[in-house]
């Protein structure tokens, strides 16, 4: 369980997160939704220690994250940012092998390579594994980075807009993989996502943010509700049930 308690974050006196408290359940997919600038990505980067909070506490299984050693945290929690430009020329397999760094400190043992192989298989990248990242499409790159996170084998997996720049097919593919990671491997996945229909269909819990504050958090079905979404996005959103999925219609 991850507990965020009364966290505040400011950039040069501009408050981007204001007294935010959120509880994230273990073994579930939790989506952060909200308009641009609502503070979703900032909250994710605070939980993953990429950024430092100004006030409040963030506890991971009861331990404050700023008290934990960075090397130990890397075995518990992993983060994938939305833009992953890498200056080094790497093959998929080399990239994925970096996921084992917290365990091997760069000297991979046979069991580390097993994790690497497993992660590559999981993301169906076997055929591409010796290709260089710069020769791949956006979707393939994204899968490679997710494979790296899988190889890192952390209890908590944080992803900042994993569907950014992906087409429908690849978006569905990625979301299905995340769902499987939760259902089959027992991971806890936290994502920042813009497409509320993906959030509705694939996540267990949703946290809705607006202007640096939590509007509402709870099971997906409770948040995907016309009145809640009106508060979050400031627009009227009609909700239809199609094949037991709550789908938001907001295009017209």
């Amino acid at each position, binding site marked *: 369980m991850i507990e965020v308690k009364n966290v505040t974050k400011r950039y040069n006196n501009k408050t981007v997160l204001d007294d935010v408290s959120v509880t994230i359940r273990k073994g579930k997919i939790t989506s952060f939704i909200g308009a641009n600038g609502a503070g979703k990505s900032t909250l994710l980067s605070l939980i*993953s*220690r*990429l950024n*430092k909070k100004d006030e409040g506490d963030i506890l991971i299984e009861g331990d404050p994250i700023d008290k934990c*050693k*960075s*090397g*130990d*945290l*890397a*075995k518990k929690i*992993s*983060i*994938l*940012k939305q833009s*992953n*430009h*890498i*200056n*080094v*020329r*790497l093959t998929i397999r*080399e990239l994925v092998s*970096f*996921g084992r*760094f*917290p365990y091997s*400190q*760069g*000297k991979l043992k046979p069991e580390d390579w097993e994790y690497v192989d497993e992660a590559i298989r999981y993301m169906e990248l076997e055929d591409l594994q010796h290709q260089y990242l710069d020769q791949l499409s956006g979707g393939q790159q994204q899968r490679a980075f997710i494979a790296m996170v899988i190889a*890192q084998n952390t209890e908590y997996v944080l992803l900042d807009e994993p569907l950014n720049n992906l087409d429908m097919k690849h978006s569905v593919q990625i979301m299905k993989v995340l769902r499987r990671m939760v259902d089959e491997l027992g991971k806890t996945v936290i994502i920042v996502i813009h497409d509320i229909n993906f959030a509705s269909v694939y996540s267990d819990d949703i946290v809705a943010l607006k202007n640096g504050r939590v509007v509402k958090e709870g099971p997906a079905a409770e948040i995907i509700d016309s009145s809640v979404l009106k508060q979050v996005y400031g627009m009227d959103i009609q909700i239809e049930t199609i094949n037991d999925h709550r789908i938001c219609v907001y295009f017209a």
Partner: protein
Amino acid sequence: MKKKLIFLAVIALALIAVFMLIQAGGHWDYVLKLRGKKVLAMIITGGAIAFSTVVFQTITNNRILTPSIMGLDSLYMLFQTFMVYIFGSAGLTAMGKNVNFIISVGLMGLFSMVFYKLLFKREGQNIYFLLLLGLIFGTLFQSLSTFMEVLIDPNEFQIVQDKMFASFNNVNTELLVLSIVLMAGTAIYFSRYTKYLDVIALGKDQAVNLGVDYDKVVKRMLVVVAILISISTALVGPITFLGLLVANISYQFMKTYKHHFLILGSMLLSIIALMGGQLLVERVFTFSTTLSVIINLAGGIYFLYLLLKESKSS
């Protein structure tokens, strides 16, 4: 990968052998001692420059930067010019090489420490901010040096000008020993951080995600870079362009992301470049030019080639 390293090592050793043995004329104990000293100086400065450049480029995630952007070379030149300006070239000679060396290293060390202290005091400071400040300080030091150079006697300026170019022609033995001890100490201190280099090359966010205590590790690495650059500059003069050259050749030649190969490769290349350059200076140009000039010429041509190749491929 190991084959490539062995290949480089063989070339380096061959050049060292040629350098040691060519035209010795029978006075073995004299010649070997004199040349051995030069070879040693070239190995340690070459190694230090190559090493610190690769580390610096990895930290900054930029392959066209050299540590000279932090302004250490300029500070060294400012100090030398200042001494000549105040005390004259006679004063510089009277001070002795040892004292000059120690003050220069001390000054550069102090400058980097104060620089880093000020900078890292504020949390979340961007590394590019540090580089920008370094650039500004470097320019300031350079302008001050130029100002004094214009004012001094042309003969005295000759002395200053000599200092601007790296030279291995008269390296002091005591300084050499001292430098080796200092550099070896630094290398041992640094060795436990080398494993982080591959991960840091992926960028800050990835490094943090993979459990690297980024701020702490980068700070230590920058200190090591500053120490190595200070020592080699004070020993032979400003020669950081060499680092840019050999680091990039090493990336191209080794074709790997693994830093222990990249670093070893660049160090060997650096030794090869210095040995080959010095041989040219001594045997072909018979001391009518300096090593820096040859390295800058070769390096400049190589960079033009790189630029042309890049623009063709894109």
